[in-house]
């Protein structure tokens, strides 16, 4: 049971948010189970993408923006998109499956101003050459990309893992790998699989007209498979890593008590993890950054937070404990004194879902995107593309 009073609720909202989102193509080189993006329009014209970036910045005041798809690395103008975003002083993050990522392309992206790349790697992707491999075995592939980006330098590395019932038990092992690689992996998102139920007891309406969900493509439904919660993922991770403690969250829009984002941040070096940041540090960082820069922080440009972070220990008991652990580690092995200190964030994400008859989105979602000059949740893009508006479900009684 999570005690919400010990967590910081991010101060983000739709018009004042740390993040934004843009999609450059809906084509992809993989067909991952659970993907919510449909192949409808292919590569988008560059000017339309750039206009969406400007609109998104204007409407969300975002600090960073995700470049997504589809697979962005197959988009022919990806370097232009990254450069344009960096030119607007937005931190660009590419969400990719990694298939096209080479050291050469990484260097070009770095020159264009890419801040971070999040690689979607998990065992249900049917990734050629990795079929039938477990999540633990896929750490080898994750290591490959982490080393590649570390070699290039200057681009932060993150991972996305879609979590199913079969892969839930692997979360501690993936987390252990991440912790070992804190100097080269700055982020991992564990994303519970979700899809809208396509069952006779739920009717869907778009602009007041009943619609059939089949038009959104094949929507399998297994209630047990779409019910993994952020708390459940936290339970799995905590069982293997008792030192993991979330610091901040976003709640659900319809079910306020749900955790749509649950975020913990490790502090450590290549030689070991010292502890986690507490809610007070996250609050100080978000509030201070907003007071100074007029926007909320998406992520630090440099993951090397250094020892100065421990200055905030005066207000944060979690950080105080991490500092004490650091001092003990230094006393045992002085090499800790010269090791760089990093922050690594672990996100537990419970996406858009149908819960108790309502659509339960992430309240203050940081993946809002511009669509036809207005702001929508990126997870609902295909509802707008197919039906022209968001779909409203209703339980048939």
């Amino acid at each position, binding site marked *: 049971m999570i005690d*919400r009073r010990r967590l910081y609720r991010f101060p983000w909202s739709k018009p004042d948010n740390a993040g934004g989102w843009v999609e450059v193509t809906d084509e992809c080189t993989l067909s991952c189970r659970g993907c919510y993006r449909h192949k409808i329009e292919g590569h988008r014209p560059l000017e339309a993408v750039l206009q969406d970036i400007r609109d998104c910045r204007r409407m969300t005041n975002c600090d960073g923006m995700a470049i997504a798809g589809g697979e962005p690395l197959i988009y022919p103008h990806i370097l232009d998109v990254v450069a344009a975003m960096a030119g607007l002083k937005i931190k660009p993050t590419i969400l990719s499956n990694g298939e096209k990522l080479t050291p050469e392309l990484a260097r070009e992206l770095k020159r264009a101003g890419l801040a971070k790349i999040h690689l979607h790697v998990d065992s249900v992707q049917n990734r050629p050459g990795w079929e039938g491999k477990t999540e633990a075995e896929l750490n080898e592939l994750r290591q490959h990309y982490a080393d590649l980006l570390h070699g290039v330098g200057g681009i932060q590395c993150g991972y996305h893992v879609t979590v199913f019932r079969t892969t839930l038990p692997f979360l501690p092992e993936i987390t252990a790998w991440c912790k070992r690689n804190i100097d080269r992996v700055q982020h991992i998102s564990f994303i519970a699989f979700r899809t809208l139920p396509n069952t006779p007891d739920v009717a869907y309406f778009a602009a007041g007209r009943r619609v059939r969900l089949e038009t959104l493509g094949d929507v399998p439904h297994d209630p047990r498979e779409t019910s993994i919660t952020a708390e459940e993922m936290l339970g799995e991770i905590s069982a293997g890593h008792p030192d993991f403690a979330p610091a901040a969250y976003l709640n659900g829009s319809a079910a306020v008590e749900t955790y749509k984002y649950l975020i913990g941040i490790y502090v450590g070096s290549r030689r070991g993890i010292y502890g986690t940041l507490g809610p007070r540090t996250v609050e100080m960082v978000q509030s201070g950054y907003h007071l100074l820069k007029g926007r909320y922080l998406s992520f630090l440009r440099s993951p090397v937070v250094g020892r100065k972070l421990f200055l905030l220990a005066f207000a944060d008991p979690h950080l105080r404990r991490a500092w004490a652990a650091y001092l003990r580690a230094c006393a045992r092995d002085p090499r800790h004194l010269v090791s760089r200190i990093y922050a690594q964030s672990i996100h537990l994400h419970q996406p858009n879902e149908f819960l108790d008859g309502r659509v339960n989105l992430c309240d203050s979602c940081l993946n809002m995107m511009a669509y036809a000059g207005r702001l929508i949740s990126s997870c609902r893009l295909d509802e707008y593309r197919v039906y022209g508006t968001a779909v409203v479900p209703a339980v048939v009684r």
Partner: protein
Amino acid sequence: MPIDRSRMYKFPWSKADNPGAWVEVTDECDLACPGCYRHRLEGHRDLADIEADILLCQRLTNCGRISIAGGEPLIYPRIVDVVAFIRRNGMQPVIFSNGVNFSRELAGALRRAGLHQIFFHIDSGQGRPGWEGRSEADLNELRQHYADLVAELGGVQCGFNVTLTRKTLSEVPAILVWVRANIAKVQNVSLIALRGLDLSAGKRYMAEGRLIDTSRWQSGSPDGREISMTSEDIYAAVERAFPETRPAAYLSGTARPETHKFLIILYIGSPRRIYGTVGARTVELNEVWTHFRKGRYMAGFARPRIGKRLFLLAGFDREVRKAFLRYFGTGLRHPTRLFDPLYIQCINIQQPNEILDGEVNLCEGCLNQMAYKGGLIPSCQLDEYRLYGGPIIEAAGEPGEGRSGPG
């Protein structure tokens, strides 16, 4: 001057971390204001249910204040107990009343129970007995009566709610002239644009997948123009009359983030002169510092008699700097004014729940959420749940495409 969002602070409030919440004690009322969205369905509620709702709100929203509304809360027999319960649980009780039953005796009992603030809903559209056909300017006399009564009581803040229509928009300056002159007694005025369902021909609505019977719905208009006034329209009326006015903070719409659902203006002044407004940076500092110290956000300022220490923020906040220069200039010309106490007063422009281009546009970070059947809903949607089982959405297309039902 158009509203420049980059010069305003977006309140960091969310559903789960919000300064306010809402509870209703009765749906009975001794007035029948046109445009009221509350229907008489259940009468006075059980005290135990109300207390359970208050505790659930506190747990789910982390709120520091609870608005007690209705219906008319002052006709609820256990109103003093409700106020005391909220105070006992470490929150500020705020009553929303039409004032008809507000007497010195009841006021004293409410103050002793811990009442923090009372809002009086007074406007010319109410058809209030004895005040029929009076203008908003005429109604300042009634507002003065209540403001004096609350000031005499001491220790309780006073606010007013005014629902605005196209017809009364032009009277906003007359209201604000009175409000500003009473800055020592009146801490808050909400100017609320009239909203309701557009009931013009051809409009149909549904809830929970069924077409609804809107003849049961009392808050709506067959004239779409009457329910489309925006915060910007109201702000323009304010700014025309008082050009130094600048909004400091806002809440946006849920479906249309570009809309301003709450637009907050904070005047600094004394009864003899308004010196200016507080800017976004001061509001941000107040919110951030309060949350860091107390673990919760704050709606408004703790002490309306804010004093000259506010000017310490002049180096940090452009609007406060401008106010300070006016204060300093006034002091040079009329030195006695330097001894006047300084107050802060909030003008809150609201554009409530509406359907825009087919989508329900609520207030993002709404501070009037309430407990309902164990969950949290926006209080403005309560009767959508009570009458139709869920939120109303617009139905398009030809009859028969939604499943018809009695609603």
